C-alpha cells in the first residue's frame, strides 16, 4: 500500500532569514525532498539601467556602487574601465595600482561575507560569521581612510582614482597584510575539516564543468567545477599583467569546493595586494580632473573578474554627456540559471546551503 502523499508548495522568502536579501523560491516539496524550484526575483529592482540614462558619466559612478553593495569597489572598476575604453583616457600607473589594491581588498571582504553567511546557513550559530565580520571591519576602516565611506565608496573616476591614499593608509594596510593569513588559517581550522560541514556539503548540489559553461556561469562557482577561466588571467586589465598569482580550481563542483575556492582566493588576493604595495611608485593618480565627458558615439564592453563572477558594463554612447544605454552583465543573476538543477532531489536544508554557496547579492541580481 503506497501512501498517497500530496506535494506541498512552500515559499522560501522573500522575507526569510537566509535568502541573502529579498529573494523568493517557490519549492514544491514531497516531505523533505524538493521536487521543483521556481526562483522569483525583482523585489529589489530599482531600475538602475533606466536611471543611468538620465545621469552623465561621472554621476553614474555613484549608481554603480549600490548594485553589488558588498563589492562596490569592483563595480566602480568595471564601469570606469568601460568608460575609459569609450573616452580613450588612460590612467597613470599609480592610479591603476591603487585601483587594483582597492579591488583586491574588496574581493577579500566579499569572499569573507560569502563564507561567513554560507556557514551561518549551515547552522554554525553565527560564530564564523562574527569572526569574518570582525576582520571585514578592519578592511572597511581602510576604505574609510581611502575615500571617506565604507560601503558606498565611489572611489574610482574615469581616468584613475579620485584622490591619493593618505599617509596613515600604508602602515594600516601593512598591519592587515601581516595579520590576515593567520586569521584565514584559524578560520580554516574552525571549518574546513569539520566532519559535520564536510558531510553536509561534500557531494551536494554538484554542477559539472560543461553545464556550468553552457549556463554562462562565471567566477568561483565556475572554477569550483574545474573550468580554469579567470578574466584577470585571460584578459588582464589595470596592472594584473604585472602581478603573479595562481587561479585555484575545484575538482567536484559541489558546495564544499565552492566554499574552499573562496578561502584560497582570499589568500591569492592578499598576495596580489602585497606585490602591488611593493611595485607602486609616487606620481599622479588621475589623468584629468574633468567631471564632464562627451565620448564619441560608439559602444564598449570591458568584462572584469568581480568577486561574484564576470561583471561588465555595456555602454552605448550617442555623443552626448549621458550614456544612451547601460546594460550591466550581473554575475549573480546569471549564476542562478542552474539553481533548479542544483536543488531538485535534495532536502530543504541543502536548498538553503546550495543557494548560499552560489554567493548571490540581490542588489546585483535585481539592479
Amino acid at each position: 500500500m503506497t501512501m498517497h502523499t500530496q506535494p506541498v508548495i512552500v515559499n522560501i522568502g522573500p522575507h526569510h532569514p537566509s535568502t541573502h536579501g529579498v529573494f523568493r523560491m517557490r519549492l514544491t516539496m514531497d516531505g523533505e525532498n524538493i521536487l521543483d524550484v521556481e526562483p522569483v526575483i525583482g523585489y529589489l529592482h530599482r531600475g538602475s539601467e533606466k536611471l543611468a540614462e538620465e545621469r552623465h558619466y561621472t554621476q553614474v559612478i555613484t549608481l554603480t556602487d549600490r548594485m553589488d553593495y558588498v563589492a562596490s569597489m569592483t563595480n566602480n572598476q568595471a564601469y570606469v574601465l568601460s568608460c575609459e575604453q569609450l573616452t580613450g583616457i588612460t590612467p597613470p600607473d599609480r592610479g591603476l595600482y591603487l585601483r587594483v589594491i582597492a579591488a583586491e581588498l574588496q574581493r577579500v571582504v566579499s569572499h569573507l561575507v560569502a563564507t561567513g553567511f554560507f556557514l551561518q546557513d549551515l547552522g554554525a550559530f553565527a560564530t564564523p560569521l562574527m569572526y569574518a565580520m570582525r576582520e571585514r571591519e578592519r578592511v572597511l576602516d581602510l576604505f574609510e581612510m581611502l575615500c571617506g565611506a565604507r560601503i558606498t565608496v565611489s572611489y574610482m573616476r574615469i581616468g584613475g582614482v579620485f584622490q591619493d591614499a593618505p599617509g596613515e593608509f600604508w602602515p594600516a594596510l601593512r598591519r592587515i597584510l601581516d595579520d590576515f593569513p593567520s586569521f584565514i588559517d584559524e578560520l580554516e581550522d574552525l571549518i574546513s575539516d569539520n566532519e559535520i560541514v564536510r558531510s553536509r556539503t561534500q557531494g551536494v548540489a554538484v554542477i559539472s564543468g560543461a553545464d556550468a559553461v553552457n549556463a554562462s556561469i562565471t567566477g568561483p562557482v565556475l572554477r569550483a567545477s574545474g573550468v580554469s577561466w579567470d578574466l584577470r588571467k585571460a584578459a588582464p586589465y589595470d596592472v594584473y599583467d604585472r602581478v603573479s598569482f595562481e587561479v585555484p580550481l575545484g575538482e567536484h563542483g559541489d558546495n564544499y569546493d565552492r566554499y574552499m575556492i573562496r578561502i584560497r582566493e582570499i589568500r591569492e588576493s592578499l598576495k596580489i595586494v602585497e606585490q602591488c604595495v611593493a611595485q607602486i611608485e609616487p606620481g599622479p593618480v588621475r589623468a584629468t580632473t574633468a567631471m564632464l565627458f562627451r565620448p564619441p558615439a560608439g559602444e564598449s564592453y570591458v568584462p572584469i573578474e568581480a568577486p561574484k563572477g564576470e561583471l561588465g558594463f555595456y555602454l552605448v554612447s550617442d555623443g552626448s554627456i549621458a550614456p544612451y544605454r547601460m546594460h550591466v552583465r550581473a554575475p549573480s543573476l546569471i549564476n542562478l540559471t542552474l539553481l533548479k538543477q542544483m536543488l531538485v532531489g535534495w532536502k530543504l536544508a541543502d536548498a538553503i546551503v546550495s543557494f548560499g554557496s552560489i554567493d548571490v547579492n540581490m542588489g546585483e541580481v535585481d539592479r
Partner: protein
Amino acid sequence: MSPLEENHIFSGTYGFVTNTLGGPDWLAYGMGAVAVIMIVVNGFLLIGTLFTWMERKVVGRFQSRVGPNRVGPFGILQAIADAVKLLFKEDIVPRRADRLLFNAAPIVMLAPSLLALAVIPFGRGSYVADLNIAVLYVVAMGGIASLAVLMAGYSSGNKLALLGSMRAVAMLLSYEIPLVMALLGITLLAGSMSMVDIIEAQHVPFLLVSPLGALIFLIAMSAELNRPPFDVTEAESELVGGYLTEYSGMKFGVFYLAEFCNVVLAGALFAILFLDGWEWAILPSHLWFLIKVFGFLFVASWVRATLPRMRIDQILTFAWKYLFPLSLVNVLALAVETIAWPDPSLGQLWIMVAVNWVIAALAIPLLSLVVDLKTPARAGRRVSPVEEAI
C-alpha cells in the same frame, strides 16, 4: 521515616508549624510540602533563567563580542528583562491554529521538566523524593517533551512549523534508545535506579568507569534537547522558527524557558550520574553540585557556539547506524564486568576503568571508519508516487 522527613526544609517547617504555631498535624505536613516545592521549583527556574543569561554571555565571548551588559551589573537581569518584555508582547493565536492544542503545548513542554525535579538530589539529604525507579521516571518525563513539540508544530497551522515538528518527532524517538542504553549501563554498575544509591555507589565517578556511556549520554541528551549540532527543529536558517514560528508573547517565553530548564535538568542528571553528584572534598555538597552543573552548561554553550547543524536524515542514520551499536558495546562491556564483580571494590573499579577506556579507545575509531553520512539517503529511497506523477 518517609524520605520527605529526612529533608531538612520539610522537617524544619513541620517542626515550626507544630511546636511554635501549635497547628494541627495535617496543616504542618501541607505547609512543609509547600515550602519544599516553593524552594525547589523556584530555585530550578531561577537557575534556568540564569542559564539564558549565561549562555548569551558565554556565546558572545566566544564570538569576540561582549554579550548583554546593559541591564543590571554585567547584564545579569537580562533574563528578567526578556521575561517582562515577553509579558507585554501581544499574544497572537493564528486563525488557522487549533486553539486548544496551541495553548496547551507550552504547558505540556514545561511541566515534565519540573516534575522530573522530584528525584534530583541537590545536595546531601535535600531531595524531594528518593524513588527507587528514579532513572526510569526521568526518562519518562523526557519522552513527554517530544509530544509537546508535535502538538505545537501541528496546531500552529504553518507549513514550516509542521516540517519542524515532523523532524522533531523522528529525531527524539530515535535518540531515546541510545539514551536509555547509556542509563542502563549506569544502573547496572550502581545496582539500583535510585539517584541517591547511584551516588553512594560512585566511589569512582562513573564518567571514568564508563566513558562510552558518558559520550552516548551527552550526544543523545543534546539531541533530546534540540541543542546544536542537532537543533533541526527550530533551525533558524531553514524553518525560520520551526515549531516556535507562530508563538509570541509569554507562550514563546514559556517554550524558551522550558528549553533552557531542560538543559539545566540534563546538566543535573549528568552531574549526578557521571560526576558523583555532591560527593567530594571539603566544599559543602550543594556547592559541588552547582559547580558541576554550571560546568556542564559551559560545555553546552561552547558546543552551541561552534558546531554547525546536521541534516535530519544524517541525524537519523547517525542514531541508528552508529550510536545504537556503540551503546550495545557499552552495555555488553558493563554487563560482563558486573557479572564478574557484583559488588565492585575500589581496586576492581579501577580495573574496570582501565578495561572500559581500552574498549572505548577501540570502538570509537573502528566505528568512525564506517561512519559515512555523505551518501545521501536519497540513494536507496523509494520513488514516491508523487514524483512519478510530476
